[in-house]
Structures are given as structure tokens and as C-alpha cells.
């Protein structure tokens, strides 16, 4: 029997989402079909409102309901310290540590020439303008510790060096709860290089 067109249409749309294939899309569609009306209405409303109400912060380019975002407006945060991350999720990860009292800047990705992503596709010009605004003393480059993230950090450092700001990179090392035996030798090597004195 042919699937009714409204279900087919929903499956086709769900398949456009990342990580959702034909099977998952069909499963979700049939779940929504049998779910209470309130659930479906709330879900549709949440998606619509998210699209309408979420904007980019004009200062840090994080996702927010009001621009500038609450973190950029927080006067207890040190405006001279800026932590540069690739994506909003990375900003959230740094914020969860509770150990950063400066501000943030979301680049919107990392350099990936193989995928056609160059400096013009990231917010590097905006970061440069922020660095030249005269309010900063230190820029912490907290891009991911992979090839693209490292290269992005070093590229930004090249661009910002003339500003004379202190440019730092997050440290490399063993993860908490890690096991030396199973770590790759590069991570172990960097952990030894970045060792710290016990006080």
C-alpha cells in the first residue's frame, strides 16, 4: 500500500536533517502521527519560535535571545580577556568550567581549505576589529586541538600579532580520568612538555 502523501512529505523533510536517514525519518514520522496533538503542536511551535527569536550577539556572535547577550553585558566579567572558540557549543563547554571570567568570541568554525572554508568564511575580520578596539589585553585561542583548529589558532595569531596583545593557546594534555597506557604518544608527549610544578 502506498504511504499517504502527508507522511511521505514529513519523512522527506525529516531526512534533510543531519544524521537522519530514511529509517529514522520514517520512525519519527510514525511516532509523531501517534503522539498527542499537544506534543506535535509544542514541537512545531518550539521550532518556529527558535527560528524567530534566536539571533547572533552583535559582540561575541554567540546565539542569544537579546543582543548583546547576557555574557557580553555582564559587567563583572573582565572585558580585557577574550576567549576565541569555534562554535557556540564550545563557548558553552568553556563556560561550564566556571573558570573563565573574561568574554567570548565565536568564530563560526575553523579553517578547512579542503572543504573550501577560508578566512573569509569565518569572523576573523570582526575579531581583528575587536582586537584593535583598545579594550583587550589578552586573546585566548581555544579552537579545537586538531589540525584545522591548531592551524586556525596560528593563523589568527599571525593576524593579531601586530596589535601587541598577549596571545595564548589552551594547553594540551591528558584528559581527566584518562589512562596513560591508552593515550596516543603525541598527547603523552605534550603532557610531559606542558608539565607543571606541584606546589
Amino acid at each position, binding site marked *: 500500500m502506498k504511504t499517504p502523501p502527508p507522511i511521505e512529505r514529513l519523512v522527506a523533510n525529516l531526512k534533510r536533517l543531519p544524521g537522519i536517514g530514511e529509517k529514522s525519518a520514517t520512525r519519527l514520522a510514525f511516532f509523531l502521527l501517534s503522539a498527542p496533538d499537544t506534543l506535535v503542536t509544542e514541537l512545531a511551535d518550539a521550532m518556529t519560535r527558535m527560528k524567530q527569536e534566536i539571533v547572533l550577539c552583535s559582540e561575541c556572535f554567540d546565539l542569544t535571545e537579546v543582543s548583546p547577550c547576557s555574557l557580553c553585558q555582564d559587567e563583572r566579567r573582565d572585558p580585557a580577556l577574550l576567549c576565541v572558540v569555534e562554535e557556540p557549543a564550545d563557548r558553552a563547554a568553556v563556560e561550564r568550567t566556571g573558570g573563565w571570567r573574561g568574554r567570548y568570541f565565536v568564530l563560526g568554525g575553523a*579553517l578547512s*581549505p579542503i572543504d*573550501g572554508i*577560508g578566512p573569509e568564511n569565518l569572523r576573523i575580520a570582526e575579531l581583528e576589529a575587536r582586537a584593535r578596539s583598545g579594550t583587550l589585553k589578552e586573546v585566548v585561542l581555544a579552537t579545537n586541538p586538531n*589540525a584545522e583548529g591548531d592551524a586556525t589558532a*596560528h*593563523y589568527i595569531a599571525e593576524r593579531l600579532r601586530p596589535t601587541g596583545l598577549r596571545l595564548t593557546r589552551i594547553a594540551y594534555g591528558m584528559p581527566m580520568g584518562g589512562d596513560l597506557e591508552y593515550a*596516543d604518544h*603525541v598527547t603523552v608527549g605534550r603532557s610531559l612538555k606542558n608539565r607543571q610544578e606541584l606546589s
Partner: protein
Amino acid sequence: MKTLHTEALLLRSVDVGESDRILHLLTPRTGRLTVVAKGARRSKKRFPGTLDFFNHLRVQVERRRPTSMPQLQLARLERTFDGIRRESRRFALGCYLLELLDRLSPEGGRAGDLKALFDFALGSLTLLDETRPDAALRTLLELQALDALGLRPELGRCVRCGTPIGAARSRGSSGSGGQSSAAALGFHIADGGPVCCAEPGEMLLPVHAGTLRALEGGLRLGLPQLGRLSLGGQALAEARALVGRFLRFHVGIELRSEAFLEERLTPAGAGGRLAHRDSNADSNARRA
């Protein structure tokens, strides 16, 4: 192939599904090999810090059924090329070479050729790890890449009549002086070599015999010695135009990483240099 243990370099990585990755590997046993790394984005224990560009790996790949895509079972890090990650010109040229190899590397072939191709890839990353590249090194690496891929252009003799370029040069220069001797020699991109006996009006890239000899010299050098070959001025402009167009002819499209590489190797100030030379070469080509 049921189980394959081999060295590998990562050429391309594409996320699929919720936690998997499709990887294009270059190996000395198979050439380019497409594998799926199940759970690569989720598991931190299975492939810890290994599945990244500019890492020399040792991998174990299994193909359970002849029709299924091989699966990456294990990846151990042999060496990482940290110097490439830390300098944007090295990174730009490194990405460009990986993309080039991804486009042109064969899937399977003669064992000796595949080993030579892998050795070129590993050697060029080793060189970039230690050397800050310029336009000359880029050109010579592109030429060596073409050679390793079995697409080496003819540089020593006319591709039509077989006359050695030295003889063609002296024939062209008889009674007409230095510059006209250069005009007598042109490179035919589609034929893949210099032509001394071209028909009138045929589109050839003008090139001096000295440039062809310098490029031949670059092919004879081992990768660690490439930086020693001096290629400057007009020879560099001609060599860039020749190798660039020959490569584009074989790749068929502009590589995505090329724009960033151009930006990095032609910075404002120093660089107008290469752009200027290229535009000279282009206008020469148009005149020809």
C-alpha cells in the same frame, strides 16, 4: 582484501550519520582507499587523537563482505606533522597536496607505483613540516606529485618530433638572438611537453629551455633537497604557469584549497610578486 595492516595518511574525512566517518586514506598497499570508521566521532578510546590530517598512521582495515565498504578497525599514530599545523603557509600547501592526492590517486595499481606515491606523500609532509614553503617549492612539489601520480610532463625533448630541447633552442636562436629563441619554444599542455615544430597560430605556453632544464633538475632531486633548487624571476613565472596549467588540465577543476594557498603564498607586499609574474606569463601566453 579481508584484513589489511598498513601505513596510511588521511586525505579526506566526511562525517556520516550520528557518529561515523567516511575516510579517504592513502596507503602504500592499495593507493587511495575509502573506509568507514564506525563510531569515530563518539568513541574517544578506539581512535584517540589519530584520525586527523597530517598524521602518519598504521591502520587495520577489514572488509567483511566483498560488496561492503571496508571498515577501519584500528588506527595507531606513528608520527604527527606538528610543524604543518603551526604555520599557515605550510598548512595551506599541505591541505592542497592532500586534496590533489585525493583527486588523482588511483584505487589500486602496480605495487611499486603505489609505494612510490605513498613515499612521495609522506616525504612531502616531512619536508613541509620542516620548511616554510614559497612559490618555487610549491611548483616543484606539484611537479613531483605529477611524477608520483604517473602524469609526469615531458621536459627534455619535443613531444612531436623528439628533438632534444637544447637542439631546438639552438635551431630557434640561429640568426635571431636571445628572446626570439624563447619564442621558438612553446609547451603544449594537452600533449604534455615542449613543441619545437608547432604549426603557425597554435596555442602554446612560451617557455625558455632553461626553465625546462630547471624543472627537470627538480624532478631528479630527492624531496629533502628540493629547497636547494633556486627558481626565481622569469623561470619561476614560466614554471608556475606551466605546472599550474598542466595540473589543472589533469585535475579538471580548481581545487577548493587553492584559494587559501594563493592567499598565503602571495601576501600583500611580498606578493603581489607571484600574482604579477603569473599575469606576465598569462599575457605571454595570450601573445603566443
